[in-house]
């Protein structure tokens, strides 16, 4: 199994200029988001709540409720097929099969009326046309893989009989039962206790390595990113402001927002000086600036930033892109991050 840390051969997923608008909003909540994902690679989508990470993930899965959401532009090629323009039926054939998703809320993501085993088996039966018996056998197998203790007994348990951590394991089992090529995990640990968070994350990372699948991990936890990501895409107000290899992003953030984000990470920031924060807060979509959407909070912003949208441009590091007229920032201020 190849570890695809750098330059993967053949993209599992290639998203191009994905643009999403919600009815009633006169602005694109996701604006021309583009990214690629190789086999076995982990891409972390990072950003504050409401920056469009989850919407992007749901759009790729075809799970955005439409209306109100409308994808007005872009493609999402999954192994060569465009997920966004695919009819319902073939898309449903991919979902839960080669393309799977784990959600943020394990407490409400399982159907309270059905047994765990049946809910997992359902995905197997749906995509492989096996018997219910065989489906349950595979459900048991995958429950063991996600290390649920006394898995045989859990098959017949109802969701309410399990803890949050156990339920998230069940969700992971459900997503992985058909051995997908791409796993999208939308803040899979946010709702869990801190101790459980680490366990679940380690489990996901391990299963991902085992299966060699690609993963998009949506998170706002930079500690998590540092641990699992191969590449990082930083989102702000619906746009990708910086993407690149995880090392480049952490050691040499170029976008003022990314810089603030990394700087505000206590465990990584050097002990000198105060904790860095970003002044202000994300404006509501109606009040997104016309140019760079970070312009209103950016200490370096000038007139051009307020007027023009900065494109993603390659920096000196290969694969590292930033959307900022002012990058690299060292030109303007020395040692701002510390």
């Amino acid at each position, binding site marked *: 199994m190849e570890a695809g840390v750098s330059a993967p051969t053949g993209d599992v997923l290639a998203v191009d200029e994905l643009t999403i608008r919600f009815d009633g909003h006169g602005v694109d909540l996701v604006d021309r988001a583009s990214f690629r994902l190789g086999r076995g690679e982990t891409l972390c989508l990072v950003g504050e709540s409401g920056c469009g990470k989850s919407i992007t993930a749901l759009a790729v899965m075809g*799970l955005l409720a439409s209306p109100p959401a409308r994808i007005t532009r872009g493609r999402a090629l999954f192994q060569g097929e465009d997920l966004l323009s695919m009819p319902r039926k073939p898309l449903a054939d991919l*979902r839960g099969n080669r393309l799977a*998703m784990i959600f943020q809320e394990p407490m*409400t993501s399982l159907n309270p009326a059905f047994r765990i085993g049946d809910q997992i088996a*359902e995905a197997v039966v749906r*995509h492989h046309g096996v018997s219910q018996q065989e489906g349950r056998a595979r459900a048991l197998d995958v429950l063991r893989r996600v290390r649920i203790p006394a898995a045989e007994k859990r098959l017949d348990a109802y969701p309410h009989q399990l803890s949050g951590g156990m339920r998230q394991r069940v969700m992971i089992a*459900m997503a992985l039962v058909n051995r997908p090529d791409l796993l999208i995990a939308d803040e899979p640990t946010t709702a869990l206790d801190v101790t459980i968070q680490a366990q679940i994350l380690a489990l996901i990372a391990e299963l991902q390595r085992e299966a060699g699948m690609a993963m998009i991990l949506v998170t706002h936890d930079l500690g998590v990113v540092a641990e699992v990501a191969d590449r990082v895409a930083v989102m702000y107000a619906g746009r990708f402001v910086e993407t690149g290899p995880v090392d480049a992003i952490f050691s040499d953030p170029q976008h003022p927002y990314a810089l603030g984000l990394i700087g505000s990470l206590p465990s990584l920031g050097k002990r000198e000086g105060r904790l860095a924060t970003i002044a202000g807060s994300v404006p509501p979509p109606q009040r997104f600036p016309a140019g760079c959407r970070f312009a209103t909070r950016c200490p370096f912003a000038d007139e051009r930033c307020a007027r023009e949208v900065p494109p993603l441009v390659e920096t000196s590091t290969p694969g590292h892109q930033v959307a900022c007229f002012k990058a690299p920032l060292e030109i303007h201020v020395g040692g701002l991050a510390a």
Partner: protein
Amino acid sequence: MWSLILRRLLVAIPTLFLVMVFVFILQRMLPGDPLLVMAGEERDPVVLEELRKLYGFDRPIPVQFLIWLREVATGNFGASLRTGAPVTELIAQTLPVTIQLAVASLIIALLIGIPTGVLSAVKKGTWLDYLANAISLSGLSIPNFWLGIILILFVSVNLRWLPASGFVSVFDDPVEAFRTTIMPAFVLGTGLAATLMRHTRSAMLEVLRLDYVRTARAKGLLESKVILKHALRNALVPIVTLSTLLFGQLLAGAVLTEQVFTIPGFGKLIVDAVFNRDYGVVQGVVLCTAVAFILMNLIADVLYIVINPRLRTT
């Protein structure tokens, strides 16, 4: 669950006692004297006095009540003042009629109400939704007796398809039973279907936006299965409870419809008994209705637990 049932049954005892007190007092407050009819044209005071003594109506009302209470407690519901037939026998004759009508009505209500409710929830905001809502609103606002009369006029009198009145038990002649029951059941059922439709719609809308519905879609299930299995199974929880309560209502509340279609059911029995001041029959029927209602409530509670895994104790 057994403790719940036991608790409910214990609570039922004071409820029933109150029902008995009320029906007894209200009835005695009604103007009119059942014995006047029995005493005949002359209304001979001596005969009246004798009758009064015979039926115990000369005693104070609280004493009469206690006597009735004692009789009921020993299983004796008394007899009709008019015909002398035992009340239990009258109930045994008419209750199955009403049950057959109620079951048929509920089936019709469920067959109409749930699919339209699901459909209008899934197609929320489209013309289908509005159409279903408009129909259900008219179903709620059209009075049963009026719909009954119109149906009789069209289907029975003009088209001569179905009999206008009467009743045949499903155990005697299923075909004829269907022919006599379908129209009154339709009249009762459509009214309930409107209620069921609205509740199904709101329950489905509630459920459809929940996370586990998204999970079902993420599994790649087709939309029909997402809706009919994952969403409906949960939306049905309140619907089952509602249906049980509606069934209890049907047992007691088919009075008008039974009158229109001259069905010899429970409703007709009690209306006739009230008009005739047939004390024993009224008391017996009301008591029986109260018991049926309490039972239906209990069944609703039990069903709620049975179909809701979260409430089941393991």
